[in-house]
């Protein structure tokens, strides 16, 4: 930014170096106060409730350790999130790769196919899977018509349905950061490697893959954290065996089991923030993360 023109302007008007906006903190203050009162304080209140009701106690956490169901739900949540993240990465990479290598006009057009699901409501998309996978749904109709089964098979309210629908909902969150990373790779590098005799597989393994690593880690982080807190999709298409943390918390709150529900909330929050901290510390993905949703 510090070009000659800028310097000249500054020299002409030294009194008004950069006063277009008064410096910083004051501008952030209203939002900061708003979020402290309406977001941080309520979350802190929930955390407090997990140890302070009806009096100071760790009994709620002891209960979480004591009954195996809670550890099981945490395990189910982590397992589903991990599997979904891996599948989303494997399916998302080819799409991002193709979009990044097509000429801009065509890739912009195909990008709409990624952005449309990204923008439409999770509720609508989960409902679509109920329509597809239901007993009289399209997939069963196709299976029946083709003679592959003689009666409808159970697809909805299974773990399979949870995976299929969650992968569908979360795919755009992987494709977008991957695309940004792949788009940023200088094509001259690929041409140079190829002209020096590298086979396509070697070009991919030794140039494209390493350079897209920031996109991979940003996408995996985003998808994994979002999956941890999933409620709508598993509640609609899953079976009772796919009880995820968010559903369990909601059930506890509904049963007026507020302290225990709060303790579960603290566990989920710790899992999400812990994942974020580890990822950003180890892989330094913060910047790509910001850009991914920008």
């Amino acid at each position: 930014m510090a070009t000659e023109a800028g310097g000249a302007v500054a020299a002409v008007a030294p009194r008004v170096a950069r006063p277009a906006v008064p410096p910083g903190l004051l501008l952030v203050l209203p939002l900061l106060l708003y979020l402290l009162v309406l977001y941080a304080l309520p979350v802190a209140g929930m955390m407090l409730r997990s140890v302070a009701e009806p009096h100071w106690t760790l009994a709620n956490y002891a209960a979480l350790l004591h009954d195996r169901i809670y550890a099981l739900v945490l395990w189910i949540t982590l397992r589903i999130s991990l599997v979904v993240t891996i599948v989303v990465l494997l399916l998302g990479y080819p799409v991002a790769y193709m979009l990044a290598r097509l000429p801009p006009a065509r890739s912009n057009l195909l990008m709409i196919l990624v952005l449309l699901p990204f923008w439409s409501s999770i509720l609508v998309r989960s409902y679509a899977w109920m329509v597809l996978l239901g007993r009289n749904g399209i997939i069963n109709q196709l299976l029946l018509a083709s003679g592959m089964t003689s009666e409808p098979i159970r697809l909805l309210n299974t773990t399979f349905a949870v995976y299929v629908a969650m992968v569908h909902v979360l795919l755009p969150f992987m494709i977008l950061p991957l695309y940004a990373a792949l788009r940023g790779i200088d094509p001259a590098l690929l041409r140079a490697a190829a002209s020096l005799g590298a086979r396509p597989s070697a070009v991919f393994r030794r140039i494209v893959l390493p350079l897209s690593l920031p996109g991979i880690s940003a996408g995996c982080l985003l998808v994994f954290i979002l999956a941890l807190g999933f409620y709508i999709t598993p509640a609609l298409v899953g079976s009772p065996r796919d009880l995820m943390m968010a559903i369990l918390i909601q059930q506890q709150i509904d049963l007026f089991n507020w302290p225990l529900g709060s303790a579960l909330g603290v566990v989920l929050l710790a899992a999400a923030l812990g994942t974020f901290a580890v990822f950003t510390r180890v892989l330094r993905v913060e910047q790509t993360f910001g850009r991914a949703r920008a």
Partner: protein
Amino acid sequence: MTSARAVPRWLAALASLVLFYLVFPIFVIVPVSFSSGSYLSFPPPGWSLRWYANFFGSGDWEGATWLSIWVGLSVTVLACVLGTPAAFGLVRGKFPGKRLLNGFVLSPIIVPGIIVAIGIYFVYARLGLIGHPTGLVLAHTCLAVPFVVINVSAALYGFDERLEQAALSLGATPWRCFWQVTFPLIRPGVMAGAVFAFITSFDELLVALFVSGTTAMTLPRLMWQEIRQDIDPTIAAASTMLLALTTALLVSVELLRRRGETLRNA
């Protein structure tokens, strides 16, 4: 990274399959919504508009739609008013703890929705705000404001500050400089943030599930209730209209993005 024959055929085929998987389920809802049958059978036994008639004929759906629009617009205004100046401070300001503050402001994106929902539920239960649209607006704004901050920040990072310096050196007051130079240039970012904020509120279910009560029924909340009770195709009609709205907003943001690029390169 563009070159003409750079994508092997097998890869293009695989990617096309994934794209099909992404888009197909969404469009399945559309024919179902025009079905004349009362079950979710496919292909529909015949065509009719009865589920749309049902949607518009029932006060419940209409009331929920208007409430969601109203809450969404209020959230949009509040989030832009709070988020735009904050983005300025976070991009251009110099003060200790800026990175930490930036992380805090963006954190509602990664904190699971259920956590925010129950935290707010406990507070509202005590204050008697359950079932008030105001409560929904206040809570949704927390979830929507990061998107305004992200979009306005992105616009500010691509901003050529020499334009402001020129305006000021030619005698414009800072106020005039802001409204005549700065704001027009970052407006695409603010508007993209506004659309994100509206969608965030309009689609939000978890907070609504806890604080809507019975008197502030939003559209997602009503859809949720109907889906869980019985899935008659009125939900498909509602979903189809939501898809149409989404598509319209997507197109408008895409146009805003292009306009932003032209303005910046001009």
